[in-house]
């Protein structure tokens, strides 16, 4: 078979698997609305209305005179992104533990198409969820000052980070052998890393022990760039740092996932 035919088949197979994944998402749409949209929305309301007063006062210069909600929303978007890790890992694990992957492996299907479908589905779900969460944020008083170009950059960074996290989750889903394991192993991504970043408060307000880590980890680079772009403040080189993190995580996770897929 020529390289062109192989590439065509690879694209076709990945598209078929993506179609399958999207159909799955539609069948489970109620579950997804709760886990992917409702949870971040509740966090938004809790942090804004219940905790926001005190946190907002404490922010001082970091808020640049804007209400806490403007500082908070980029963080909630990150939380929405991170929340997709669990379902993505679980979906991959379910395929691995059921007979489906074995069936695919005995067919002349492009290796990797199945994972590409999972990753593509995860990115699309995340884009829908972040759009919905942004809509609710606007309703509760979020006032972004982003230009059209800024918005495009925001979408780009969200998609890139989602892509990186999806490959990471897929790899985790491949190596964990149960649904509980898949979910448990993504909990650090879903909660620990967002909290140990500038998601809710600036990294330099944290205790000395975690400050350096929080300031230099990928979640902070991503949330800081989103915040700068959405509030219309100078972003400096942070978006490039964020994109570099996304590329590095995606590459390492992709290689890890491919190696695990071949081994299992």
């Amino acid at each position, binding site marked *: 078979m020529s390289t062109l035919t192989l590439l065509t088949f690879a694209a076709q197979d990945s598209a*078929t698997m993506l179609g399958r994944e999207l*159909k799955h998402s539609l*069948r489970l749409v109620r579950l997804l609305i709760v886990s992917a949209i409702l949870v971040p929305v509740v966090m938004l309301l809790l942090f804004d209305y219940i905790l926001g007063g005190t946190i907002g006062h404490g922010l001082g210069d970091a808020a640049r005179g804007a209400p806490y909600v403007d500082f908070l929303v980029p963080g909630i978007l990150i939380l929405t992104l991170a929340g997709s890790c669990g379902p993505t890992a679980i979906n991959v694990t379910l395929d691995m533990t*059921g*007979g489906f992957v*074995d*069936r695919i*492996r*005995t067919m*002349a299907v492009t290796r990797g198409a199945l994972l590409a479908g999972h990753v593509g589905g995860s990115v699309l779900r995340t884009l829908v969820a972040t759009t919905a969460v942004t809509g609710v944020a606007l309703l509760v008083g979020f006032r972004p000052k982003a230009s059209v170009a800024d918005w495009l950059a925001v979408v780009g960074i969200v998609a890139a980070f989602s892509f990186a996290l999806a490959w990471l989750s897929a790899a985790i889903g491949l190596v964990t052998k149960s649904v509980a394991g898949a979910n448990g192993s993504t909990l650090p991504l879903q909660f620990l890393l967002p909290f140990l970043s500038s998601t809710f408060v600036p990294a330099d307000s944290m205790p000395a022990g975690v400050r350096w880590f929080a300031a230099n980890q990928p979640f902070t680079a991503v949330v800081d760039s989103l915040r700068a772009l959405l509030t219309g403040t100078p972003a400096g080189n942070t978006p490039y740092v964020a994109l570099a993190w996304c590329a590095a995580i995606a590459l390492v996770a992709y290689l890890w996932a491919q190696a695990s897929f071949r081994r299992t």
Partner: protein
Amino acid sequence: MNALTNQATRTAVSVTGLRKAYGEKVVLDGVDLTIGVGEIFALLGPNGAGKTTIVRILSTLIPADAGTATVMGYDLGREAGAVRGVIGVTGQFSAVDDLLTGEENLLLMGRLLHLRAPVLRERASELLERFDLVDAARQTPATYSGGMKRRLDLAMTLMGRPRLIFLDEPTTGLDPRSRQTMWQIIRELVREGATILLTTQYLDEADHLADRIAVLDHGRIVTEGTPEELKRRIPGAHIRLRFADAASLVKAARELPEGTRDDEQLVLRVPNERGIRSLRDVLARLGDDVAVEDLFIHTPDLDDVFFAVTGNVSKEETR
């Protein structure tokens, strides 16, 4: 066509010296197999004998530790891609997508096989019709019975018209009627030109379906042949006659010296090598004046096969 190419085109699967171990545990200990094109070949054995491992190796899922194998003329090690193009596998555990409807499952397989759009639809509806799944086509397998799920699973395998079909315990856990349906489907597939390698724990299944049977035990093929050949080698078949009193038993034992007496239970066990013909013969030799109270025909089962070919203790002996 010379003899050599003739040989090659007539052999669907050829396996020599297949070995597989997981750590210390040897699963396959040098398996040789030859399956002809158009044959139904049954691998018969208990759980853990290595049946599924053979299927997983031949369907390219796992590599063997040693040995060579060709599948439809392709080398399993070097041409795994080509092998995948000609085989179809229905595993022991259902491999249907539970979130897709029956029809969507078939269409998914067709798309992955790169069937053209009109062919895709036509083939899917043809298989739904054939496997009696038309009414359930738009429902997800969650609502299916075990037999329906198994039929959908097999229909998915058939979307690509595979020339060699692996069926790993196709009827385990099915009710008798679904089992009959599955047997009928398997026979039809062979009539249409497919070759089938099926694994089973049931001697009667292998007996009903297979042209040839290989008995697998502890990773070795302990005996192989047509169902007839195997049954002739198994001494387990017998007729059990129970009598009302000792006098009748003595009389019967005199007429049937090949039988084994159990005086306590007033039972005589007579070997039954030829089924109904032996039975008629035994009754004729007893005549009218020996009162038989009870009669039981014991046909050889997997236990007998194992007792006969492996020397393992069978159920009958431990009772």
